[in-house]
């Protein structure tokens, strides 16, 4: 059931007896800017640390603990050009805990969103300093995951010089020093006042009572009209190449292609099938030929991003097999473009995608994410199986032909 709380603030309730837990997702989205990405990431950390009523992490944790270990937290992400700050809760349904648990959790979310630890127009300074240090540390620690590191480097090279998508959704170190307890209050207020808000509730819940409770959230009407959700950029004539050497046991070879097919475009489902054939499944050409037959890698896979047009391939290899791996990867792309795959493989990949989708309907947080995606893109996912099954060999070839190599990043581990 859909319910409009005010202009720009929508509530969607999925009442189902399937699960023993309930999910609540409150998504704040806005156009991303050079200034707001890192600031919103830190605001998210502050909102989940403390509130006026629960002024320390411990006080807040004791409250969630008494709510049968309810998970209540925040995170940030992005949908193409939009930045999303999300407040999320996951908790046991009243019938397995105590009557009124759902209402208590919603009250806590209200407290977190409307009563953060702000006094005299500034976030509590010790909390601010601590969380800023923590965000800095956690961004730095990401470099230790070499698979993630290589993926981030590839993005940096792939996205155009003036692109905001070069900035990770969780922020960047160079912005942190400029943030203050006062400036973050502005970021926070802009978010609560101007963002587009989608609230999604799923579980064995009483819809009427949920609506009544969310009506009491003090959201004012907002315009919340944004430009295009989907990010596009010009093709470069010569693919960019970057190599870096570190003392590592394994090297990483990652390739970035542009694939200008966006969420729910006419060719969207064909792009999912194409990905499954090229590198998105254990049946795929990359997995079978680079890993299984050539024995070059432990992982070799691909993934499309239907919001920014980046199609990436990643592998973990021996440094002396870089050239061979690169050649093999390009051969697999060419093979898909030329339709060198069997009808059986096509069908198996389709069945796999359908199986994965239906399986995702058994995970309540996935259902919530899917509904949010539908709301943000103003589309509806239905007949997925039918649309996937309609994809033909010719569709896959046509989609693959649109892959344009744009960048290569090679992390050379000189130990191996």
């Amino acid at each position, binding site marked *: 059931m859909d319910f409009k709380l005010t202009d720009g603030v929508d509530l969607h309730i999925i009442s189902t007896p399937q699960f023993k837990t309930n999910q609540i997702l409150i998504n704040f989205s806005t156009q991303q800017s050079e200034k707001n990405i890192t600031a919103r990431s830190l605001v998210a950390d502050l909102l989940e640390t403390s509130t006026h009523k629960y002024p320390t992490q411990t006080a807040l944790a004791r409250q969630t*603990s008494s709510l*049968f270990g309810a998970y209540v937290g925040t995170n940030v992400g992005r949908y193409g050009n939009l930045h999303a700050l999300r407040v999320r809760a996951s908790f046991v349904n009243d019938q*397995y805990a105590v009557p009124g648990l759902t209402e208590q959790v919603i009250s806590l979310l209200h407290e977190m969103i409307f009563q953060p630890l702000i006094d005299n127009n500034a976030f509590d300074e010790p909390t601010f300093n601590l969380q800023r240090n923590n965000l800095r540390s956690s961004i730095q620690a990401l470099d230790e995951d070499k698979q993630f590191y290589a993926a981030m480097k590839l993005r940096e090279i792939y996205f155009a010089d003036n692109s905001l998508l070069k900035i990770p959704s969780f922020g960047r170190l160079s912005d942190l020093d400029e943030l203050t307890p006062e400036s973050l209050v502005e970021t926070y207020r802009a978010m609560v006042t101007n963002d587009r808000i989608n609230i999604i509730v799923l579980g064995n819940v009483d819809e009427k009572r949920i609506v009544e409770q969310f009506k009491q959230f003090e959201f004012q009407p907002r315009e919340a009209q944004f430009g295009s959700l989907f990010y596009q950029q010009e093709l470069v004539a010569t693919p960019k190449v970057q190599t870096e050497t570190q003392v590592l046991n394994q090297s990483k070879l990652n390739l970035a292609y542009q694939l200008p097919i966006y969420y729910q475009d006419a060719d969207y489902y064909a792009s999912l099938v194409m990905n499954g054939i090229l590198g998105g499944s*254990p049946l795929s050409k990359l997995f079978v030929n680079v890993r*299984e037959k050539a024995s070059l890698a432990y992982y070799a896979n691909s993934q499309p991003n239907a919001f920014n047009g980046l199609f990436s391939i990643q592998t973990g290899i021996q440094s002396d097999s870089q050239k061979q791996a690169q050649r093999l990867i390009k051969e697999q792309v060419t093979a898909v473009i030329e339709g060198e795959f069997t009808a059986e493989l096509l069908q198996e990949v389709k069945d*796999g995608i359908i199986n994965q989708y*239906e399986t995702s309907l*058994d*995970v309540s947080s996935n259902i919530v994410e899917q509904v949010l995606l539908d709301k943000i893109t103003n589309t509806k996912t239905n007949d997925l199986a039918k649309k996937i099954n309609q994809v033909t060999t010719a569709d896959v070839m046509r989609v693959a032909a649109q892959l344009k190599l744009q960048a290569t990043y090679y992390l050379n581990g000189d130990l191996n």
Partner: protein
Amino acid sequence: MNEHHYQQLNETIYSQQLENGLWVQVLPKMGFHKTYAILTVDFGSIDRSFIPIGKDEPITVPDGVAHFLEHKMFEKEDHDAFDLFGQLGADSNAFTSFTQTSYLFSATEHVHESLDVLLDFVQSPYFSAKTVEKEKGIIGQEIKMYDDDPNWRLYFGLLGNLYPEDPMHIDIAGSVDSIAKITPQDLYTTYNTFYQPSNMNLFIVGNVDAQQTLDWIDKNQAAKSFDQSTEPQVEFELNDETGGDVIPFRTLEMDVNRPKVMVGVRGINVVQSGKAGLQYRLAVELLLDILFDDTSDNYLRLYNNETIDDSFSYNFEMQRSFHFAYFSSDTDQPERFSDEIISILEGATQQIDAAASQFENIKRAMLGRMISLLDSPEAIANHYSGKLFGGTNLLDEITSLAAVEIDDLYKIATDFIQSQGISVYQIVPKRN
């Protein structure tokens, strides 16, 4: 077919031991789309010395054999089991731990066929010199990938301190050198010894009818012939039961931004098996929560003085023949971190007194988190620990939790936390 209904949790488990010894459990989840099935062999990386079936003398196989076997089970002479699942639209995978090897699939259709594929590929070995050689390249890359992960190195570094002479300190996948020695004969020997139906269990959760599912499995198994079952004779003995061999401290330089530190506690005491073992595990977990979770005063103090941050975590692992807890964080004050953690552990009795008012709350939170797991077919099935806890499952765990009292924690604390079992491992930034 045995039927056990858990009224408060609104779930029912059906179970049966087949004639060949295979244990099967089914938990129907109506309203779910998928079915998840996991076939587990009671054989893991630490089981490297054993008496091969039909022989009298123990042998020792190269490190990483259990994991290598897991990889190679999928490949047959003329096909690959991955492909068969693919043809059915099912997802399949496998994993190996210290004491278990598991094969699994999840499917929304063709559940009967997928179950047959699962049982057939795990029960029909095919290893050749050529395919074994080829796999060494793939697994070699898997090992190297983990070697570059500082958190993995931290974990195995600590295990190297806690069990320096026992197989738990060795990477489950082995090393590039040890896997180079693996032969098809090693794989056949371990397979024949451990992959007997009586040494396996199959757990199925999802959109299935229990009786029908059991009939399918029964039919599949009845069509095969197995040798008379023989309990695998694993030669496992701790190097030093008293923990006298624990290395108190080691450090490693690596390319990290900040130091990482892990404190470990090796359980020296012998824990009873069966349900008593399960009770012990729950009590230790509650003890750790009361001392260290984010509702504790300890946590707030260490967080606010920047000894720990959001990277802080702790865990308790209990498996066949060993158990240990570990605490870790990225921190600029690694010495202070280990001093604080050890001091809290050694003062556990007073700490329990101080935190007693939080006990019911903590228990309630654990109960809530365990109930949440019931929404995940994977979590229910993967939680089953077979013989270790006397065939109990996640639902029994939830039921047992209520019986743990704060008084139990005092005894558990003195049993579990013993000074000679405590150790520290650090990873510090490389000096340039």
